[in-house]
């Protein structure tokens, strides 16, 4: 037994989310079996009743922070794990539910629940990185299985994972898709959106809606931001979207992360 190589311990945690990114782990198919051999899946409540205590070598976190308890839970997880990877839009930017960050929270709770006094939730939905140090971020709503596979196999091989930050337009061109912005006048977010999905929206004849978050052309240097200002101007001036409509394009899946956050604030006169 002493000679047996100790397998790294993997944990999967959930915060406020739809479970779709965790599901990507279970959808690795054949590779899931291999992963199960190469790591010890120590904590993954959605898949197993056996929940082992930490420490963990790698933790995957899905979901955003949106209740007071979650802040404490997250701090405890950070202490327990060596490498922390956020999976998906919610964990990485606050997700779609971060739309609440721009609204009156009490009005939201009252709008949804007849007994708002039973509900304990924060007025914001925030990314994991706003509370603890994050080692790697996998973007996407949902994440791309192949990116997950790559990050995990890199880590297991002792290689520093690199997650591409360039615009999805590059992938779209490589796939020889017809540009929906130029040819159909669709308000496509592709030019400012991070690659990773495989350019599926233009492939399906529609505009990208930015579910992989803002591109970071010089990632990991993170000095250069996607030019949302120019794209928003194009939406308004060439495609004749109202300021409100243009802002709504950005205020969607990743409303709470720069520069989508700022681009989402360009609401027109008298509009919200």
């Amino acid at each position, binding site marked *: 037994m002493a000679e047996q190589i100790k397998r790294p311990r993997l944990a999967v945690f*959930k915060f*406020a*989310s*739809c*479970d*779709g*990114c*965790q*599901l990507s782990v279970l*959808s690795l*198919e054949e590779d*899931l*079996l291999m992963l*199960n*051999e190469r790591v010890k*899946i120590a904590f993954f*409540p*959605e*898949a*197993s*009743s*056996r*929940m082992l205590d930490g420490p963990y070598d790698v933790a995957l976190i899905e*979901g955003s922070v*949106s209740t007071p308890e*979650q802040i404490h839970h997250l701090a405890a997880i950070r202490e327990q794990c060596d490498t922390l990877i956020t999976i998906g839009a919610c964990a990485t930017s606050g*997700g*779609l*539910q971060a*739309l*609440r960050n721009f*609204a009156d929270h009490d009005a*939201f*709770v009252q*709008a*949804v*629940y*007849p*007994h708002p006094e*039973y*509900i304990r*939730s924060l007025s914001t*939905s925030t990314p994991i990185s706003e509370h603890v140090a994050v080692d790697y971020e996998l973007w996407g*709503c*949902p994440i791309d299985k192949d990116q997950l596979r790559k990050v995990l196999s890199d880590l297991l091989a002792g290689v520093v994972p690199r997650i591409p930050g360039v615009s999805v337009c590059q992938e779209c061109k490589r796939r020889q898709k017809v540009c929906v912005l130029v040819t159909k006048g669709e308000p496509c977010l592709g030019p400012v959106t991070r690659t990773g*999905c*495989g350019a*599926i*929206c233009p*492939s*399906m*004849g*529609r505009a990208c*809606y930015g*579910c992989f978050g803002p591109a970071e052309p010089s990632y990991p240097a993170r000095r250069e931001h996607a030019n949302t200002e120019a794209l928003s101007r194009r939406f308004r001036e060439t495609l004749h979207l109202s300021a409100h*409509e243009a802002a*709504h394009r950005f205020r*969607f*899946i990743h409303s709470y992360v720069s520069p989508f956050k700022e681009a989402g604030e360009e609401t027109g006169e008298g509009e*919200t």
Partner: protein
Amino acid sequence: MTTRNIEVDLMARVEGEGALEVVVDKGEVKDVRLKIFEAPRFFEAFLKGRHYSEVPDIVARICGICPVAYQMSSVHAIESAFGMEVSETVRKLRRLLYCGEWIESHSLHVYMLHAPDFLGLDSGLELARSEPEILRRGLRLKKVGDRILTVLGGRAVHPVSVCIGGFTRLPQTNELRSLLDELHWAREAAKETLAWVAGFEMPDLSPGYTFAALSGNVYPMNEGAITVSRDGTAHDMSCASDGFEGHFKERQAPYSTAMQCLLDEKPYLVGPMARLNLNAASLRPVVREALAEAGVELPLVNPYHAIIARSAEVLQAVDEAIELIEDYEGLGTGPGEPYRPVTPKESVGTAVTEAPRGMLYHRYALDADGRVVEANIVPPTSQNQARMEADLWQMIPSILSLSDEALAAACERVIRCYDPCISCATHFLRLKRVAA
């Protein structure tokens, strides 16, 4: 100690976060609480003001396991509000998309989440040691569902092609036909799955369910009338002037972030068992034969038999997917217009479709520009919640001799029969303002 507090802090192998609390005093069950602590996300609130075209992408995010169900109920409700109908091609492709989701969601539950309970395992992955071929069959079946979703929608989770009026793109015939080899394999695998789960040893429990599901000429997915069976007779409730919300009413429990829905003040069951029992007449012949071969007789009345119903529906969905693909016209002439033009108007629309876990109700009020004024969503898990608690009230007295740990595990197993999707239940949204 005459009072026992039995708690499960975090239920495993369910989607989302829930806990269970049972209080037993002097041999009598005093309280059963299914406590959902999944964080609320307030979808109904932020749908307000969004354009109708954004709704399918928003509501998909309520659930990563059944996003298609949310997309389907939303497009049907909004199309009904705008008084529009979709083409026959679109109608069939939506059924095919739903087949993909049922195959994916049910296979995941049967193999990875539920079967371990009958095999004495902690997780489906443990089958890798004892019966690797069975685990492979389950993962491959799930993948067949994922592939249908990917061909039609670009990806399996949160597909992108569903829109009001149709799809943003229709598949080429050869893309669909490329799925056939795998679907033919899946038909055999689904039969084997059904035989496998029908052989599991299952505890006896007959809580005397009221079943609720859509029912009609075809096995229900996107269409059918709301039907309820009580005392062995099926009643069509859909024609009632007050519709779904007139009969099915939600209430909020202080210990849960999800709403509970009751039918005329009483718990009821939605999902695969309810569908199967109320739609035995529209089952495909291959499913009837497989059920007969496995010695399964309808109606199913024991919650543990849900895994049989789910497996039967995988076979139903695979067999129908094959037919839909083989019949798909479009070769040579191209598949035609992907969607019909939309003319928004001030209106209200409702729809119920059959999510993998049961009826999913949506209602939208829209303004003249097609922006959402009000939204109400009732997911299947909040409908089953009261039923889960009722099952436990009924079962616990017969297993009081068990240790706390064993009793808690037995309770968890009952809950798992329902395949509860807690993420959904919490994120149901209603914009009816109750507080001033």
